[in-house]
């Protein structure tokens, strides 16, 4: 029996993707680093490492600790600054076989707006992710995503700086992520990325000192998946804009948990460090999963494990 092809394409707040997989910011370089190991035409999009207005040296080493079911990192947003990136790195990404999403970070509302403005002016950039949730910079890094009012003001400023699809990346390190999500939506976000890393630390019991140069870091990988799935589930009930679910996704079954909780697409970060072929494999297995259930499109199952979730079609009053 020849089955009709399964449609894995998704639209994330105006960002049209052939595959529902976005490579997590900070985990995939510019994509060029992974080109010898992965087929970039079989992934949805690459989210670039977060950029700031001014150059940043990043945190002291060590920046990485492997943990039993994940990875602790404290890179500290090392980057040469948005102007250099736009001129030297982003300009070279025109030929990439998938869309490129820029990621903006900052320490004030104005900085975020300026970085968004530069990304907005770069034709190679298809959408902008607002990283208001980096746990690895000493002072204000994460405060934006931890405060509803600050979230609203930074998203408003970013919204004013770009017409490209704006994805706001939320932190799991909050009491009520749904409340923050609502503010981001109200302030003009087109989509939400849920979630960034979970704060954590590791201690060297021989030397009696923290293992990370920055002391605290962000935990990613399978260890955080249940935390992230719940965050998506709660956010999906609170907003109407699409969600990019992420946190510990390493196979199609993991991705399906997020999609069934209400994510339209998934982010894949740490799993690329195990095997860069994971995102392609997830796409193949998602297609098999849908085909085996006689489903035609990934969009049909978004939020289906979430009783409080209304699909975009249902919202428009069209059950099709």
């Amino acid at each position: 029996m020849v089955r009709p092809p399964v449609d894995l394409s998704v639209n994330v707040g105006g960002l049209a993707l052939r595959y529902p997989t976005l490579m997590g910011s900070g985990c995939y370089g510019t994509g060029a680093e992974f080109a010898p190991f992965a087929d970039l035409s079989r992934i949805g999009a690459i989210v670039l490492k977060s950029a700031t207005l001014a150059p940043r040296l990043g945190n002291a080493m060590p920046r990485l600790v492997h943990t039993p079911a994940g990875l602790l990192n404290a890179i500290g947003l090392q980057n040469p600054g948005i102007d250099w990136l736009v001129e030297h790195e982003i300009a070279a990404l025109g030929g990439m076989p998938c869309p490129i999403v820029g990621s903006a970070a900052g320490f004030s509302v104005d900085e975020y707006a300026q970085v968004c403005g530069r990304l907005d002016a770069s034709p190679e950039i298809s959408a902008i992710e607002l990283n208001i949730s980096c746990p690895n910079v000493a002072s204000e890094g994460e405060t934006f995503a931890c405060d509803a009012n600050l979230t609203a003001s930074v998203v408003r400023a970013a919204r004013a700086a770009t017409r490209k699809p704006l994805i706001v990346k939320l932190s799991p390190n909050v009491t009520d992520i749904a409340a923050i999500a609502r503010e981001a939506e109200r302030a003009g976000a087109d989509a939400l990325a849920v979630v960034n890393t979970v704060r954590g630390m590791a201690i060297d019991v021989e030397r009696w000192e923290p293992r990370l140069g920055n002391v605290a870091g962000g935990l990613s990988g399978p260890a955080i998946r249940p935390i992230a799935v719940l965050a998506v589930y709660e956010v999906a009930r609170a907003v109407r804009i699409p969600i990019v679910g992420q946190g510990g996704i390493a196979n199609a079954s993991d991705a399906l948990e997020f999609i069934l909780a209400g994510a339209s697409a998934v982010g894949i970060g740490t799993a690329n460090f195990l095997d860069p072929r994971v995102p392609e494999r997830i796409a193949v297995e998602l297609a098999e999963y849908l085909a085996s259930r006689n489903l035609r499109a990934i969009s049909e199952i978004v939020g289906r494990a979430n009783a409080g979730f209304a699909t975009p079609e249902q919202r428009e009053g069209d059950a099709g």
Partner: protein
Amino acid sequence: MAVSASRVHETRVVARIEATAGVVVLRMQAPELAAIARPGQFVMAIPPGEASAAVALGLYDADAESVSLLFFVAGKRTKVLAALRPGEPLVLLGPLGNGFDLRDAPKDVAIVAGGVGIASVLLAALELLRAGARVRLFYGARTARLLVERERFASAGCEIVLATDDGTAGLRGFVTDALASAHMPALILACGPTPMLRATATIAASANVPAQLALEETFACGVGGCWGCVVPLVQESAQAPHFPKTRDGIVRARICAEGPVFSASELRW
């Protein structure tokens, strides 16, 4: 059809030797990798099962058909790799990193290796010996039992100077103490723990001998994508030409991408 990614090697284990308890040499059938691997480069080995990251391992040995990896069993991921048996598959990504620069290498070279650092220097020794150089291996470990693969280096033609922390083989103390009191070579290559590399750099600087140091660090991606493995270099370093100018004249380069081999004189650690 998916375009097959060019640096992914689906290999098969052809031999497994336990050099000593807890130190394993795995040989894989991997002709394409063997054909392009250069001394000092490394691979990311994907442990089968539920691991959350691949393992960076130096390319220890190679012939026309196969490559060998030498590693110490240190955690969950290396334990899984150590359990592999001949016939079983293993995926390797690589070769990665810059490797040693042996072009126009002089005829008198010292190689300094500490512990698992031995895994990254054999191919360099072999290439230098083939070119007719005198190669002295200064090899240190905690104890004699851990000075694995000495015969491999000796039979290839290396002169070997040993050092152990407990004095069970060779000099009691640091291998760099042995280097410091030896006749100076025209080039030093080194791989091992950071204190050993620092000491090597100091000796090289005071004797005005060029040194290439292969740095060891925890990697996540191993391919330059995450910036988790940086080391400070002088701004003018030939290894960081594409880095923007910084006010303090120092750039932080990725050990996995710009390295793992750095010229000792360009490191600012």
